[in-house]
């Protein structure tokens, strides 16, 4: 355990060292890292390793689509039970689950079959997800493989110390109750192991698409949206920005595990005409068009109640001429007002010549309310790095630990003592991230009531920041909510009245809750 190792090498200039990031598919990433970190020269510092794993049918589709775009430094992998599906995919790294159980057939929409297959291939899954700093797990929930294997992939990746962002496509409601139920259960399981889960309900696409559009077209649209989102985050890490953001900024945004997350994309195609075409509208028009197109993003799962975010990560990408500072200023200010000025704003701007006149905006908001601090340590990572890279491993682990140190205070001791024992116990090892041990997955809310949290609504734990880390550590795991869900319901009697904002806080929400005072009932 390298808690003491606090050396934090600067992150490499990604553009300067693109080769180092492209891993040969299928190979274990550690030797690459070890080799890279062997040299002390700036350009050869270990790069931030990314990976995208498509799980299940829908996940494979999306990964395949992305593989056509050839994003440098984003190795792809696909995981499925269906051998035929895998064979059709152009993604190089393929992982077939449950060869013995399924004999290359799909799970047939049965999550239990999917689970058995995934369990049988746990080692393979660990090899796929492990080793990257940032893992995107892309899946369609509701089916057999995706519902069962995606949480497992995420858990293994997280266990290895990576930051895990899940993209989950939820089934159409016309697909029937069973799929919806499976999807809900899987979503809860996924949220428990991911740093952020971005949800795309297919139903939204149905509303959006034209009258006569086929289901296939809608599925394709879903794929396209997720591809855009992944590209946006990839771009944030990969392109050196005018106002640069790197992996550390992303880590900062997801400081608290299981925070409510809101994710939105704006601009691009829809806003193009307003941004570029209408010269007279100028910057103000462009900013307005951007803001107007933001609510149209189906990934933006934001009920009306969402009022406040604690951290906002806003990334602009645009052509040299289209991206002006005043545009950035106007949009960021509007977002800041929308989510409370107290929010910590992290702004990035990247020039992308290929964007031409277009400007694209990607924003990620997280709220700490009532959630455990995200990280304990890179134990998994430390172990892996040491095993792989000998002395250099300490450096790699140190970076992980250092980047994440300071986030866990109350939780540190607990994690340090709990983790080693649990890490030995295979399947339960993911639980080390959240102490004490989590509840049975079937009922995600029960631990809250057991821990005596005072919320009327099960999703609510009080307070934020460090005190919440304490409260939440005590109350075990917290299922991640729809952003803002509980906030809209915690005003009680004042539910339907105007916001009562003072210094970014809604005074109608009980004070004890905003201040993180723990109440026993």
């Amino acid at each position: 355990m390298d808690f003491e190792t606090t050396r934090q090498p600067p992150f490499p200039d990604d553009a300067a060292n693109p080769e180092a990031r492209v891993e040969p598919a299928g190979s274990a990433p550690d030797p690459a890292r070890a080799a890279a970190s062997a040299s002390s020269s700036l350009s050869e510092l270990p790069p931030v390793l990314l990976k995208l794993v498509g799980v299940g049918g829908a996940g494979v589709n999306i990964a395949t689509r992305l593989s056509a775009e050839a994003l440098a430094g984003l190795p792809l992998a696909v995981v499925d039970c269906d051998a035929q599906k895998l064979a059709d995919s152009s993604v190089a790294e393929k992982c077939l689950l449950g060869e013995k159980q399924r004999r290359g057939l799909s799970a047939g929409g049965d999550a239990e079959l999917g689970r058995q297959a995934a369990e049988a291939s746990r080692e393979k899954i660990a090899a796929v997800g492990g080793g990257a700093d940032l893992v995107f797990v892309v899946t369609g929930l509701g089916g057999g493989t995706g519902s069962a294997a995606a949480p497992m992939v995420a858990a293994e990746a997280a266990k290895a110390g990576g930051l895990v962002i899940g993209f989950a496509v939820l089934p159409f409601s016309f697909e029937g109750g069973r799929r919806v139920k499976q999807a809900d259960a899987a979503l809860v399981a996924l949220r428990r192991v991911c740093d952020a889960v971005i949800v795309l309900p297919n139903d939204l696409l149905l509303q959006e698409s034209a009258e006569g559009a086929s289901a296939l077209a809608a599925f394709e649209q879903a794929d396209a949206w997720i591809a855009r989102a992944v590209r946006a985050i990839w771009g944030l890490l990969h392109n050196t920005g005018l106002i640069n953001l790197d992996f550390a900024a992303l880590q900062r945004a997801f400081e608290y595990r299981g925070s409510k997350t809101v994710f939105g994309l704006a601009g691009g195609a829809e806003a193009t005409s307003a941004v570029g075409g209408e010269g007279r509208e100028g910057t103000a028009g462009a900013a307005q068009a951007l803001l107007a197109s933001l609510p149209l993003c189906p990934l933006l799962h934001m009920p009306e109640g969402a009022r406040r975010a604690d951290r906002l990560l806003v990334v602009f990408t645009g052509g040299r001429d289209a991206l002006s500072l005043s545009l950035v200023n106007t949009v960021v200010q509007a977002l800041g007002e929308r989510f409370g000025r107290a929010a910590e704003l992290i702004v990035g701007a990247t020039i992308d010549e290929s964007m031409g006149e277009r400007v694209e905006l990607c924003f990620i908001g997280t709220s700490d309310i009532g959630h455990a601090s995200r990280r304990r340590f890179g134990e998994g990572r430390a172990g892996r790095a040491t095993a792989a890279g000998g002395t250099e491993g300490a450096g790699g682990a140190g970076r992980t630990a250092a980047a994440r140190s300071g986030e866990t205070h109350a939780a540190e001791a607990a994690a340090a003592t709990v983790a080693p024992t649990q890490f030995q116990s295979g399947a339960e090892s993911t639980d080390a991230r959240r102490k004490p041990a989590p509840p049975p997955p079937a009922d995600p809310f029960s631990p809250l009531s057991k821990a005596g949290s005072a919320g009327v609504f099960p999703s609510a734990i009080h307070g934020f920041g460090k005190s919440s880390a304490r409260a939440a550590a005590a109350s075990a795991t917290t299922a991640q909510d729809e952003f803002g869900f509980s906030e809209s319901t915690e005003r009680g009697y004042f539910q339907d009245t105007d916001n009562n904002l003072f210094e970014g806080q809604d005074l109608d929400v009980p004070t004890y809750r905003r201040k993180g005072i723990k109440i026993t009932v």
Partner: protein
Amino acid sequence: MSSDPVTLAAVEIGSSKVAAIVAEYTGYGFTIKGWGECQSQGVRKGCVIDYPAVTQCTQQALENAKRATGGSSGVPVEQIDKVFLAQTGGHLDGFYNEGARIVSAADNMVSAEDIAEVRRLAKAKELPEGRMLLERLRHPFRLDGRLIKSSPEHLCGRRLEVGYWMVHGDESRISDSYHMISNSQIEVAEMVLSGLASGRVVTSQAEREHGVLVIDIGGGTSDYALYRDGLPYVAGAVAVGGGHLSNDLTIGLRLSTGQGDRVKLRHGRAIVQCRDKAQKVWLDGDLAIGDRQLPLLSIEKILEARVREIFEVVKHKLGTAFSPETCAAGVVLTGGTSKLPAIAEAAAAVFNTPVHIGQVSDGFPEPLQDPGFHTALGLLQLGIEKQRAREAAERSQRPGFLRRLFARPSRH
């Protein structure tokens, strides 16, 4: 003036109740004839959300008050001529504006014209769209930096300055409450800020000279007024009140709305006193089905956090206008929530000054000495003062004593 008494009513439409006091004004003083109240419905945080319900409550309260006038004099009042209406709510906002003028006369003596001009300048600031001016609080004049508590006329100096604290509110909300009364064919003669109204009756002139802060914590709002040098200096409202205390308990202890309120009244405390985590109190205490035990510590913690925050928000809103040094007479609390045990200590901890619970003069009938009526009482006093000032101004503009004497009968 003294010949024909006018029947006045002071009406406060609060979030928990509508209070009305009916009085007779003879031109010199007023006599309280009766009072009435009605549980308020359709008002949240001081703002009307259900117009018909509130109108009904207001009429009921006025009716109760009218009927009560019969008790003392034998004959109930038939007609209310004028109404004074209290204004509160989170929509109120204030700002400070200042005007300055170089004294025009060559000998540096301040003339009436200088005073009028500097006042005009200080008032000239325009309000944002959709806002309506409710109150202008004039701060003392300054002549070359010297504080002049009375009129600076005939004093000598080069530069005359004056500042106003202007309180404005949302036009539609103010007109909502205005029409509540005017729709029943009664004239709304004055609108007064609730904070100033209650501040007027719970402080003495001496206290206001020394500097005092009045906080009226009602059901849905907390109104405040800061006095310095005998004049109201800053006034405003925060849309947090006793209802929030109940709501916090309701949410925190998972009770129904009515239960939260009862627990607050029965077991509430503004400062945590209970040291025993295991100490429990009964929800209803009647041993009926559904009765259960609640940890006293939790109740006290929830209330302490909220009460403290109310004071902190008020203090923050006052900003630099408040400091313990300029507020020698301390803080006075009033309003229904001021009955919460230990609330004075909680306020003292935030404001760092002595705090006491406001009381009105013994001269008023006993039921009106309840903090719930303080605003209405102050409203009556302040409204009459304002009317007098208005009449005086009118009179001074009218030419000639004799003509005024002849003109008077035609007014009625």
